[in-house]
């Protein structure tokens, strides 16, 4: 891929990733965050984080299905870091807007409310991934170990989805779509691996 094309595409991905933040900022300035802005900010940032994680996890299966799209991997770090950005915004909304920075409230919540417990865990798992996302860290850890560490993202996504399901009222199906897409992506991996093995055997 030509360097200018890559820069153009990266700019577009940046812009797309900033849409949720821009919508929140615009809504906050123009009083359009609804009757409960605290809830809107928290919900929109959390949803953006989950969606970006899912998109970043879709890259590997897509590359395996369509080898010509291999260049997509160049955007994975960007997507992952934006997911972490929104997850952190989500956490900050909880810490500031819901808990008023009160440690007592937060400790009580984290221990007592299981959806917050798994939500915090999900965010904590993303922290080492964000830190080791740099080229320097990949070199320092070595590709294999880095890959193993970054498998934590699967656990983080699962906990994130559980957090979503446990937060909504029983019977509300809002988290269903993203859960099904995630399940499909999880299933795609063993299926694609099996296909690769079979192709290798046929060649042998």
């Amino acid at each position, binding site marked *: 891929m030509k360097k200018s094309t890559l820069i153009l595409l990266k700019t577009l991905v940046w812009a797309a990733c900033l849409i949720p933040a821009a919508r929140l900022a615009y*809504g*906050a*300035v*123009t*009083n*359009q*965050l*609804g*009757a*409960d*802005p*605290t*809830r809107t900010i928290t919900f929109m940032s959390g949803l953006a984080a989950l969606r970006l994680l899912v998109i970043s996890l879709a890259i590997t299966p897509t590359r395996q299905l369509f080898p010509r799209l291999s260049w997509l991997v160049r955007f994975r770090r960007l997507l992952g870091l934006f997911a972490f950005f929104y997850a952190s915004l989500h956490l900050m909304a909880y810490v500031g*807007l*819901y808990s*008023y920075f009160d440690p007592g409230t937060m400790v*009580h*919540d984290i221990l*007592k*409310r*299981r*959806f917050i417990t798994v939500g915090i865990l999900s965010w904590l798992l993303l922290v080492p991934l964000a830190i080791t996302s740099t080229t320097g860290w990949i070199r320092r850890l070595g590709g294999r170990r880095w890959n193993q560490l970054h498998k934590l993202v699967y656990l983080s996504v699962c906990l994130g989805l559980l957090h979503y399901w*446990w*937060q*909504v*009222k*029983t*019977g*509300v*199906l*809002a988290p269903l779509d993203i859960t099904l897409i995630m399940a499909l992506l999880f299933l795609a991996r063993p299926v694609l691996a099996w296909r690769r093995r079979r192709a290798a055997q046929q060649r042998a």
Partner: protein
Amino acid sequence: MLLRKPNALDGSDIPSSEITPRKDYEAFLQEQRSRRRFLAGAAATAGAAALGAHSIGSLFEPEQTVHAAGKLQTVPSPLTTHGEQLTSYQDVTTFNNFYEFGVDKSAPAHNAAGLPTRPWSVHVTGLVQKEKTIDIDSILKLHALEDRTYRHRCVEAWSMVIPWVGYSLSELIRECQPLSTAKYVQFYSYFDKKVDKWWSESYIDWPYSEGLRMDEAMNPLTLLTVGLYGDVLPNQNGAPVRVVLPWKYGFKSAKSIVAIKFLAKQPPTTWNDMAPNEYGFYANVNPNVDHPRWSQKTERRIGLPFYAQRRNTLMFNGYGDFVASMYNGMDLRRNF
């Protein structure tokens, strides 16, 4: 009789000295708004350095709109709640849990437009002298419509203060002539898949249904509600007729009622059926009994600046004087 029986339904029995002229009311609102703006400005200046958020408008100064003049003729009520700042009409009518019209809180305001509120009738059935159908216009004329401001506490830990319009449900129940064997009353909400097209966003067993013990239904606080802010109920708030039980979590206050059934045994109710460990049949507001997934000790008052939203939840939502005696001797931890 606690309530003053008015001679006329048009409010002509209210001394003119008791009526606040509209322009005075608007001036009052205007003054409140500018005061809030000043306070918000001061707080914003203080916090701006840390947040860089001087103009985060909706968080500091939530939207306030003055609603157009009411269409219903109402009289004051001794049962109204004083000393609370009303939640704005805008917030009351755009932040609704009405899952037949979508699970998103802003969805019912868009989607409930198709709810056919006229003609409308309420079917009275079960343990009554004679089953019958009462037309909405008869319901509106049965008793003087009272302005009753109540605190509203959702099980999701947010709250509002809403000026409802209606009269005690007991007036309608007397009209229904229940038998002495009737110990419970059940409400059914409107449901039609062609109208409530968003019903499949949750796996609730429609139609929505709620129930009360007979003494709860007959409690003077239990409001048969036909309006808010002096106007007829907007569809998303449960038009044309609903109940409001201010000492219980909001889901007990069934919307858009099409049938009332009198029973000898406790009826099944929607949320209690869905998750009995999370939503009790009584569902009395109780800061000492947490929802299994979140605390009920505090609530967030919708419409206030974010730093002033959280407040302690009151036992029976602050209506203990009216209702606590109905639950004497009951273990409210078990019968939550």
